[in-house]
C-alpha cells in the first residue's frame, strides 16, 4: 500500500503512525522510563549524526567536532531554562538578543567585506569574531536590563504550561543558534585553509569545548554549570512530541536542502572540489553552509538531550564520545540519510539497551568490547555501510520528470553531429 502512495504522503503517514504508537505506549506505561530514555537518546544521536552526515557524507569534510556543537547546544539551552525556572530571564534574553544581533552584524559585515578586494581569511575571521563579541556584549549589558523584565512580564501573563513550552522552544532554538554561530566562526579559518587539517582541527575543537566545560565555574562565568561536577537542576521538559518534532524538522530541512541547487553544490564539493570551483561554485560558502547547518542540528539535539537527562556532565562530551556519530554515519552508509536514521536509533538500542540486558550482570562494560567487534565485522563484510547509498523514496534524489517535447525544440534547432551522421 505504501508503495503506491506519493513518497511524501507515505512518509507523513508512517511518521504519524510512529508518533501515535510511541505516544500511546508511553502514556499507557508499556514503555518505561528506561526505554523512553533510549528512544529520546536515539533521536538525539540521530540528529547529531545526520548533521555529521551532511558535513562528512555529503560535503566530504571529515569532522570530529560534532560533539563540541552538541555540547554547546546542550549547555546553552540548559542554562537558559535553568535560569528561567529560578526566575532569571537573563539567559533567555542574552541568547536570543545576542544571536539576532550577531546575525544582523554578520549580514552587514559580509556586505561590507565584499566591497574589498582580496581580504584574507584571518582578517575576515577577526572581523566576524569581533562582531560576535560586540553582539553578545550588547546583549549582556543592554538587552538584559532592558528586555529581561519585559520577557518576565509577557510570559508571566500566559498560563505556566504555555509559557514553559515557549521558553523551552526558545531555549532549544537558542542553543542550536549558538552552536551554529560557533561553527560559523570556527569554520571560516579552518574550512578555507584546507580540508586536510579540518579533521584534526575539529578534534581539537571538541577537546577545547570539553576543557571549557570542565571549568565553566572557574574560567567561564557560569557557576550554575558547576564545572567538572556536572550541571544539575535542569528542568526535565523534553517530551515525545518535542523529540519527534525536532527529529522531523532535522530530516525535512536536510532533505529539502539536499534536493535543491544548494544541495547539489554541497555534493559537488565532495565529488571534486577543484572542478566545483571551476564551474562557478563558491566552494568555501558551500562548505561553511554544510558545516553550520550540520552543527545547528547537533545543537538542537543537545537541547533535547539536556532536558531529557536533566543532568549534564562534561565527560559525556569528551572526544572519545565524538566518535559515536562518526561510527553511526559510516555504519549506516556515508551519504545515506536513511542509513543514519536507522543506525542512530539502533546504535543506542544496541549499546545501552540490548547489550546491557543480554550481557550477564557485572559484564556490562563488555559491551564496549562487543561493539568494536561488530564494527570490524561490518567493515570487512560491507565496507560501504549497511545501507550503502540507499534512501527511502521520500529522501531519494529523484531525477525531475522529462520536460514535454513541445517546449524542447532545442535539439531540433540542430544537434551535435553524431557518430554515423557524418
Amino acid at each position, binding site marked *: 500500500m505504501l508503495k503506491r502512495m506519493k513518497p511524501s504522503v507515505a512518509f507523513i503517514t508512517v511518521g504519524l503512525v510512529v508518533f501515535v504508537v510511541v505516544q500511546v505506549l508511553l502514556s499507557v506505561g508499556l514503555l518505561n522510563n528506561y526505554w523512553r530514555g533510549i528512544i529520546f537518546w536515539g533521536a538525539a544521536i540521530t540528529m547529531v549524526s545526520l548533521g555529521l552526515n551532511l558535513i562528512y557524507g555529503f560535503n566530504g569534510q571529515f569532522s570530529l567536532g560534532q560533539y563540541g556543537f552538541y555540547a554547546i547546544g546542550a549547555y546553552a539551552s540548559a542554562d537558559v531554562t535553568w535560569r528561567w525556572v529560578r526566575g532569571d530571564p537573563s539567559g533567555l534574553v542574552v541568547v536570543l538578543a545576542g544571536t539576532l544581533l550577531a546575525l544582523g552584524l554578520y549580514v552587514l559585515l559580509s556586505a561590507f567585506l565584499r566591497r574589498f578586494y582580496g581580504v584574507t581569511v584571518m582578517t575576515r575571521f577577526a572581523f566576524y569574531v569581533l562582531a560576535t563579541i560586540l553582539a553578545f556584549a550588547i546583549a549582556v549589558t543592554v538587552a538584559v536590563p532592558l528586555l529581561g523584565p519585559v520577557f518576565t512580564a509577557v510570559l508571566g501573563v500566559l498560563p505556566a504550561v504555555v509559557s514553559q513550552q515557549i521558553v523551552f522552544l526558545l531555549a532549544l532554538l537558542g542553543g542550536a543558534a549558538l552552536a551554529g554561530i560557533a561553527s560559523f566562526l570556527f569554520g571560516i579559518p579552518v574550512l578555507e585553509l584546507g580540508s586536510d587539517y579540518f579533521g584534526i582541527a575539529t578534534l581539537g575543537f571538541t577537546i577545547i569545548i570539553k576543557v571549557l566545560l570542565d571549568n565553566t565555574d572557574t574560567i567561564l562565568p557560569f557557576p550554575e554549570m558547576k564545572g567538572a561536577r556536572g550541571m544539575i537542576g535542569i528542568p526535565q521538559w523534553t517530551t515525545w512530541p518535542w523529540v519527534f518534532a525536532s527529529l522531523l524538522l532535522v530530516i525535512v530541512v536536510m532533505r529539502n536542502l539536499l534536493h*535543491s541547487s544548494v544541495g547539489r*553544490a554541497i555534493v559537488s564539493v565532495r565529488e571534486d572540489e577543484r572542478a566545483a570551483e571551476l564551474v562557478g*561554485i563558491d566552494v568555501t560558502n558551500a562548505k561553511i553552509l554544510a558545516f553550520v547547518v550540520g552543527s545547528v542540528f547537533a545543537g538542537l539535539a543537545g537541547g533535547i538531550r539536556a532536558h531529557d537527562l536533566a543532568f549534564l556532565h562534561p565527560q559525556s562530551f569528551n572526544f572519545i564520545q565524538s566518535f559515536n556519530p562518526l561510527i553511526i554515519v559510516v555504519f549506516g552508509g556515508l551519504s545515506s540519510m536513511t542509513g543514519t536514521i536507522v543506525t542512530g536509533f539502533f546504535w543506542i538500542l544496541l549499546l545501552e539497551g540490548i547489550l546491557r540486558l543480554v550481557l550477564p550482570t557485572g559484564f556490562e562494560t563488555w559491551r564496549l568490547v562487543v561493539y568494536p567487534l561488530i564494527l570490524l565485522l561490518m567493515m570487512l563484510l560491507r565496507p560501504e555501510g549497511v545501507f550503502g547509498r540507499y534512501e527511502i523514496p521520500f529522501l531519494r534524489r529523484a531525477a525531475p520528470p522529462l*520536460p514535454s517535447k513541445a*517546449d524542447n525544440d*532545442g*535539439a531540433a534547432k540542430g*544537434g551535435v553531429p553524431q557518430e554515423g551522421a*557524418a
Partner: protein
Amino acid sequence: MKGRPEGVAAEIEARPVVLEIDGVTHFFGNLRAVYNFDLELHHGELVGLIGPNGAGKTTVFNLVTGVYRATRGSIRYKGTELVGLPSHEIIQMGIARTFQNIRLFSNLTVLDNVRIAYHPHAGYGLVDSVLHTKRFREKEAEMAAEAQEFLEIFGLGERRNDIAGSLPYGLQRRLEIARALAANPRLLILDEPAAGMNPQEIDELMDLIHFIRDRFDLTILLVEHRMRLVMNICEWLTVMDFGEIIARGFPADVRNDPHVVEAYLGRQAVEIR
C-alpha cells in the same frame, strides 16, 4: 602588435577584446613556469596555444581561471582585472574551462553534472531551498528543462540518469564541455580536449568545437597536443616553450617557423606536409 599576430583580418581586429593577458609571469618557487606571456583574444576567435610538454600552457589556463595567482602581470576579461579573484567569481563572469584529465562529478548523474553548473544562476536562495517554495519549484523545473535541452544538444539526452563516471570516454569529454557551457560562458578554455582520442573522434570533436562556437557565440582558446586538430581548427596559434612565447602566427606560418620546428613540431610537421 602585442599578444596578436600580424595580418588578422581587419573585421576581426575591430571586434571587442574578450581576453587580454599582459606580461604575465608565474613562478613555482624558483621554477619559472610562464615568462612575460601576452595574448589578446577578440570576440568570436578560435585560437590555439601549443607547445611541448611542460611548456607552461596549462599554467596559463590556470592563471586565467584563478587556480594560481600570477606572480606578475595582468589578465583582463572584458576590461576587468582577474588576477587575485577567486576561481568561482572568474567563472561566474563568463569564463568556462575543461580539464586535461576529465574532472566530472563522477558519482552523480549526467543531469546533475550539468545542473550543478547552473547553481550560480539558480535564481532562488537558501530559504526557498529549505522550504521548497513555489519559486523553488518553478526555478527547478526551468533548470531541469534547460539542462535537458543542453544534454539533447550534446547527444546525451538518453543518458541523463546515468552515472557520469560510467559513460564511455568520448561521452565524458562531451559531458565536460556541456557542463562548462551550462555556466553560460562567453569565453571557453579547452585544455587538451583531444587527449586520448582516435583520429575519427578528433574529427567529431572538430565539428563539435565549430558547432558550439557558432551556436553559443563563444570565443575559444584551446591547448592542444594533436597537430591534426590544431592545424585544422585554429585561426591562429601561439607557441610556447619553457614558459616563453617562441612563435605566433597562422597555422601555415607556424608550421614552417624554424624555431617551432626545432622546439616542438619536428617529425610531426613533416608528416603533415
